Protein backbone atom coordinates (compact mmCIF):
# COMPACT_ATOMS: atom_id res chain seq x y z
CA UNK A 1 0.00 0.00 0.00
CA UNK A 2 1.33 3.44 -0.94
CA UNK A 3 2.23 5.95 1.77
CA UNK A 4 0.28 9.22 2.06
CA UNK A 5 3.36 11.20 0.98
CA UNK A 6 3.69 9.13 -2.18
CA UNK A 7 0.02 9.64 -3.06
CA UNK A 8 0.32 13.38 -2.45
CA UNK A 9 3.32 13.68 -4.75
CA UNK A 10 1.53 11.64 -7.44
CA UNK A 11 -1.59 13.80 -7.11
CA UNK A 12 0.44 17.01 -7.33
CA UNK A 13 2.94 16.12 -10.04
CA UNK A 14 0.67 14.04 -12.30
CA UNK A 15 -2.64 15.72 -11.35
CA UNK A 16 -3.75 12.19 -10.51
CA UNK A 17 -7.37 12.28 -9.31
CA UNK A 18 -7.28 8.57 -8.40
CA UNK A 19 -4.34 9.13 -6.02
CA UNK A 20 -6.24 11.97 -4.38
CA UNK A 21 -9.35 9.77 -4.24
CA UNK A 22 -7.35 7.19 -2.32
CA UNK A 23 -6.27 9.87 0.17
CA UNK A 24 -9.91 10.90 0.59
CA UNK A 25 -10.92 7.26 1.16
CA UNK A 26 -8.27 6.92 3.87
CA UNK A 27 -9.03 10.10 5.77
CA UNK A 28 -12.70 10.97 5.13
CA UNK A 29 -13.85 9.34 8.36
CA UNK A 30 -11.45 11.41 10.52
CA UNK A 31 -12.27 14.65 8.74
CA UNK A 32 -16.04 14.09 8.83
CA UNK A 33 -15.95 13.04 12.49
CA UNK A 34 -13.89 16.12 13.33
CA UNK A 35 -16.31 18.45 11.54
CA UNK A 36 -19.37 16.71 12.98
CA UNK A 37 -18.03 17.22 16.49
CA UNK A 38 -17.15 20.83 15.78
CA UNK A 39 -20.40 21.84 14.13
CA UNK A 40 -22.82 19.47 15.86
CA UNK A 41 -24.74 19.17 12.60
CA UNK A 42 -24.11 16.04 10.53
CA UNK A 43 -25.44 17.33 7.22
CA UNK A 44 -23.62 20.64 7.42
CA UNK A 45 -20.47 18.82 8.53
CA UNK A 46 -20.56 16.55 5.48
CA UNK A 47 -21.03 19.55 3.19
CA UNK A 48 -18.08 21.19 4.91
CA UNK A 49 -16.06 18.00 4.49
CA UNK A 50 -16.67 18.16 0.74
CA UNK A 51 -15.52 21.78 0.65
CA UNK A 52 -12.55 20.86 2.80
CA UNK A 53 -11.39 18.13 0.39
CA UNK A 54 -11.83 20.44 -2.61
CA UNK A 55 -9.74 23.10 -0.84
CA UNK A 56 -7.21 20.41 0.01
CA UNK A 57 -7.01 19.45 -3.68
CA UNK A 58 -6.38 23.10 -4.62
CA UNK A 59 -3.77 23.59 -1.90
CA UNK A 60 -2.17 20.14 -2.07
CA UNK A 61 1.08 21.56 -3.46
CA UNK A 62 1.52 23.53 -0.21
CA UNK A 63 1.79 20.33 1.84
CA UNK A 64 5.48 20.19 2.60
CA UNK A 65 5.60 16.57 3.79
CA UNK A 66 6.66 17.63 7.27
CA UNK A 67 4.22 16.21 9.80
CA UNK A 68 1.36 13.85 9.11
CA UNK A 69 -0.99 14.34 6.18
CA UNK A 70 -4.03 14.01 8.45
CA UNK A 71 -2.66 16.89 10.56
CA UNK A 72 -2.44 19.06 7.45
CA UNK A 73 -5.91 17.92 6.34
CA UNK A 74 -7.44 18.82 9.71
CA UNK A 75 -5.83 22.24 9.41
CA UNK A 76 -7.67 22.69 6.09
CA UNK A 77 -10.87 21.36 7.70
CA UNK A 78 -10.59 23.76 10.64
CA UNK A 79 -9.97 26.72 8.31
CA UNK A 80 -12.95 25.69 6.17
CA UNK A 81 -15.11 25.43 9.29
CA UNK A 82 -14.07 28.89 10.53
CA UNK A 83 -14.67 30.45 7.11
CA UNK A 84 -18.13 28.92 6.83
CA UNK A 85 -18.92 30.02 10.38
CA UNK A 86 -17.94 33.59 9.53
CA UNK A 87 -20.09 33.48 6.39
CA UNK A 88 -23.15 32.04 8.14
CA UNK A 89 -22.75 34.55 10.97
CA UNK A 90 -22.86 37.37 8.44
CA UNK A 91 -25.90 35.72 6.80
CA UNK A 92 -27.63 35.30 10.17
CA UNK A 93 -27.00 38.94 10.98
CA UNK A 94 -28.64 39.99 7.73
CA UNK A 95 -31.60 37.70 8.39
CA UNK A 96 -31.87 38.99 11.93
CA UNK A 97 -32.05 42.52 10.62
CA UNK A 98 -35.04 41.56 8.50
CA UNK A 99 -36.52 39.38 11.28
CA UNK A 100 -36.19 35.94 9.66
CA UNK A 101 -35.26 32.52 11.02
CA UNK A 102 -34.30 30.09 8.28
CA UNK A 103 -36.04 26.75 7.99
CA UNK A 104 -32.68 24.96 7.96
CA UNK A 105 -31.69 26.68 11.18
CA UNK A 106 -34.85 25.70 13.03
CA UNK A 107 -34.49 22.12 11.72
CA UNK A 108 -30.92 21.95 12.99
CA UNK A 109 -31.94 23.12 16.43
CA UNK A 110 -34.70 20.52 16.54
CA UNK A 111 -32.29 17.76 15.51
CA UNK A 112 -29.72 18.87 18.06
CA UNK A 113 -32.28 18.79 20.85
CA UNK A 114 -33.28 15.25 19.87
CA UNK A 115 -29.85 13.70 19.61
CA UNK A 116 -27.82 15.04 22.53
CA UNK A 117 -25.14 12.61 23.64
CA UNK A 118 -22.75 12.76 26.60
CA UNK A 119 -20.05 13.99 24.28
CA UNK A 120 -22.32 16.78 23.01
CA UNK A 121 -22.80 17.90 26.61
CA UNK A 122 -19.04 17.92 27.19
CA UNK A 123 -18.45 19.82 23.98
CA UNK A 124 -21.16 22.32 24.85
CA UNK A 125 -19.26 23.61 27.89
CA UNK A 126 -16.14 24.24 25.79
CA UNK A 127 -15.41 27.31 23.72
CA UNK A 128 -15.06 26.82 19.97
CA UNK A 129 -11.28 26.96 20.19
CA UNK A 130 -11.16 24.48 23.10
CA UNK A 131 -13.55 22.17 21.27
CA UNK A 132 -11.38 22.12 18.15
CA UNK A 133 -8.20 21.48 20.12
CA UNK A 134 -9.76 18.80 22.36
CA UNK A 135 -11.29 16.99 19.38
CA UNK A 136 -7.99 17.08 17.50
CA UNK A 137 -6.20 15.75 20.56
CA UNK A 138 -8.60 13.14 21.91
CA UNK A 139 -10.70 12.14 18.90
CA UNK A 140 -8.10 12.40 16.13
CA UNK A 141 -5.02 11.57 18.17
CA UNK A 142 -2.94 14.51 16.95
CA UNK A 143 0.19 15.48 18.88
CA UNK A 144 0.48 18.92 20.48
CA UNK A 145 2.89 19.95 17.73
CA UNK A 146 0.46 18.84 15.01
CA UNK A 147 -2.41 20.70 16.71
CA UNK A 148 -0.18 23.75 16.96
CA UNK A 149 0.44 23.61 13.21
CA UNK A 150 -3.23 22.98 12.42
CA UNK A 151 -4.57 25.82 14.55
CA UNK A 152 -1.62 28.24 14.17
CA UNK A 153 -1.26 28.41 17.96
CA UNK A 154 2.03 28.03 19.82
CA UNK A 155 2.52 24.58 21.41
CA UNK A 156 2.35 26.16 24.88
CA UNK A 157 -1.05 27.67 24.08
CA UNK A 158 -2.30 24.31 22.80
CA UNK A 159 -1.28 22.70 26.08
CA UNK A 160 -3.00 25.38 28.13
CA UNK A 161 -6.16 25.17 25.99
CA UNK A 162 -6.27 21.39 26.59
CA UNK A 163 -5.67 21.95 30.29
CA UNK A 164 -8.47 24.53 30.42
CA UNK A 165 -10.82 22.25 28.48
CA UNK A 166 -10.16 19.33 30.78
CA UNK A 167 -10.66 21.58 33.78
CA UNK A 168 -14.06 22.71 32.45
CA UNK A 169 -15.16 19.12 31.77
CA UNK A 170 -13.93 18.06 35.19
CA UNK A 171 -15.81 20.86 36.99
CA UNK A 172 -19.03 20.36 35.04
CA UNK A 173 -19.19 16.55 34.91
CA UNK A 174 -18.01 13.49 36.70
CA UNK A 175 -16.43 11.96 33.62
CA UNK A 176 -15.82 8.62 35.30
CA UNK A 177 -19.59 8.06 35.30
CA UNK A 178 -19.84 8.50 31.55
CA UNK A 179 -19.31 6.03 28.81
CA UNK A 180 -18.07 7.08 25.41
CA UNK A 181 -20.50 8.33 22.83
Amino acid at each position, binding site marked *: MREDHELVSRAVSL*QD*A*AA*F*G*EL*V*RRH*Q*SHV*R*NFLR*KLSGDFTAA*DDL*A*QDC*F*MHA*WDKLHTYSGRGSFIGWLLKVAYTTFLQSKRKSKRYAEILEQVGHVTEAESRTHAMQADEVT*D*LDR*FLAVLSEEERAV*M*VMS*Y*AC*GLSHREISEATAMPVGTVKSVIFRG*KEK*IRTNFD*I*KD*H*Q*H*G
Partner: protein
Amino acid sequence: MTSKIINMAERLKDDEDRLLESLFASAPIADDGFSTMIEKRVRRQLWLRRMVLPVAALVGAIISFKPLAGLVTMLAGLTTLIPQDVLKVPSDVVPQLPMLFMGAMLLAMCMLGLRALQE
Protein backbone atom coordinates in the same frame (compact mmCIF):
# COMPACT_ATOMS: atom_id res chain seq x y z
CA MET B 1 8.69 9.98 47.77
CA THR B 2 8.56 12.95 45.37
CA SER B 3 9.10 10.69 42.35
CA LYS B 4 6.31 8.42 43.61
CA ILE B 5 3.97 11.43 43.74
CA ILE B 6 5.05 12.50 40.22
CA ASN B 7 4.53 8.95 38.92
CA MET B 8 1.10 8.82 40.52
CA ALA B 9 0.20 12.22 39.06
CA GLU B 10 1.34 11.07 35.60
CA ARG B 11 -0.62 7.85 35.92
CA LEU B 12 -3.69 9.78 37.02
CA LYS B 13 -3.25 12.15 34.11
CA ASP B 14 -2.82 9.23 31.73
CA ASP B 15 -5.95 7.56 33.08
CA GLU B 16 -7.90 10.75 32.60
CA ASP B 17 -6.51 11.16 29.11
CA ARG B 18 -7.43 7.57 28.25
CA LEU B 19 -10.91 8.16 29.61
CA LEU B 20 -11.27 11.32 27.54
CA GLU B 21 -10.01 9.47 24.48
CA SER B 22 -12.70 6.83 24.95
CA LEU B 23 -15.32 9.56 25.48
CA PHE B 24 -14.27 11.42 22.36
CA ALA B 25 -13.93 8.25 20.29
CA SER B 26 -16.57 7.56 17.70
CA ALA B 27 -17.18 4.80 15.21
CA PRO B 28 -15.54 5.28 11.80
CA ILE B 29 -17.89 6.83 9.28
CA ALA B 30 -18.62 4.60 6.28
CA ASP B 31 -17.46 6.05 2.98
CA ASP B 32 -20.82 5.46 1.20
CA GLY B 33 -19.63 6.98 -2.04
CA PHE B 34 -18.19 10.08 -0.40
CA SER B 35 -14.67 9.62 -1.80
CA THR B 36 -16.03 8.70 -5.24
CA MET B 37 -18.05 11.91 -5.26
CA ILE B 38 -14.96 13.98 -4.35
CA GLU B 39 -12.91 12.16 -6.98
CA LYS B 40 -15.59 12.96 -9.57
CA ARG B 41 -15.58 16.63 -8.58
CA VAL B 42 -11.79 16.70 -8.85
CA ARG B 43 -11.90 15.07 -12.31
CA ARG B 44 -14.53 17.57 -13.44
CA GLN B 45 -12.40 20.44 -12.16
CA LEU B 46 -9.33 19.06 -13.96
CA TRP B 47 -11.32 18.68 -17.17
CA LEU B 48 -12.60 22.26 -16.88
CA ARG B 49 -9.09 23.56 -16.25
CA ARG B 50 -7.82 21.74 -19.31
CA MET B 51 -10.66 23.16 -21.37
CA VAL B 52 -10.27 26.78 -20.24
CA LEU B 53 -7.26 27.60 -22.41
CA PRO B 54 -8.42 25.98 -25.68
CA VAL B 55 -11.95 27.39 -25.31
CA ALA B 56 -10.63 30.84 -24.48
CA ALA B 57 -8.22 30.64 -27.42
CA LEU B 58 -11.06 29.59 -29.72
CA VAL B 59 -13.33 32.41 -28.52
CA GLY B 60 -10.48 34.89 -28.87
CA ALA B 61 -9.72 33.61 -32.36
CA ILE B 62 -13.37 33.96 -33.42
CA ILE B 63 -13.56 37.48 -32.05
CA SER B 64 -10.28 38.62 -33.53
CA PHE B 65 -10.72 36.79 -36.86
CA LYS B 66 -12.11 39.75 -38.78
CA PRO B 67 -9.53 42.34 -37.67
CA LEU B 68 -6.73 39.79 -38.08
CA ALA B 69 -7.91 38.93 -41.58
CA GLY B 70 -7.91 42.65 -42.38
CA LEU B 71 -4.41 42.98 -41.02
CA VAL B 72 -3.18 39.99 -43.01
CA THR B 73 -4.69 41.42 -46.19
CA MET B 74 -3.04 44.70 -45.43
CA LEU B 75 0.32 43.02 -44.84
CA ALA B 76 -0.08 41.05 -48.05
CA GLY B 77 -0.67 44.32 -49.87
CA LEU B 78 2.47 45.69 -48.26
CA THR B 79 4.65 42.98 -49.76
CA THR B 80 4.20 44.57 -53.19
CA LEU B 81 5.70 47.74 -51.83
CA ILE B 82 8.87 46.06 -50.56
CA PRO B 83 11.67 47.08 -50.72
CA GLN B 84 10.83 50.74 -51.41
CA ASP B 85 8.38 51.29 -48.55
CA VAL B 86 9.55 48.55 -46.20
CA LEU B 87 9.92 50.87 -43.22
CA LYS B 88 6.66 52.69 -43.74
CA VAL B 89 3.56 51.51 -41.90
CA PRO B 90 0.36 52.45 -43.74
CA SER B 91 -2.07 54.48 -41.67
CA ASP B 92 -4.85 51.89 -42.35
CA VAL B 93 -3.16 49.41 -39.96
CA VAL B 94 -3.59 51.68 -36.98
CA PRO B 95 -7.45 51.54 -36.93
CA GLN B 96 -7.22 47.73 -36.62
CA LEU B 97 -5.37 48.05 -33.32
CA PRO B 98 -8.39 48.94 -31.13
CA MET B 99 -10.19 45.86 -32.50
CA LEU B 100 -7.20 43.67 -31.68
CA PHE B 101 -6.99 45.20 -28.23
CA MET B 102 -10.71 44.56 -27.71
CA GLY B 103 -10.24 40.96 -28.86
CA ALA B 104 -7.44 40.46 -26.35
CA MET B 105 -9.54 41.98 -23.58
CA LEU B 106 -12.48 39.73 -24.44
CA LEU B 107 -10.15 36.72 -24.45
CA ALA B 108 -8.95 37.63 -20.97
CA MET B 109 -12.54 38.21 -19.80
CA CYS B 110 -13.62 34.83 -21.20
CA MET B 111 -10.79 33.14 -19.34
CA LEU B 112 -11.77 34.89 -16.11
CA GLY B 113 -15.44 34.04 -16.67
CA LEU B 114 -14.70 30.37 -17.22
CA ARG B 115 -12.50 30.38 -14.14
CA ALA B 116 -15.35 31.89 -12.11
CA LEU B 117 -17.78 29.29 -13.47
CA GLN B 118 -15.35 26.55 -12.56
CA GLU B 119 -15.05 27.92 -9.01
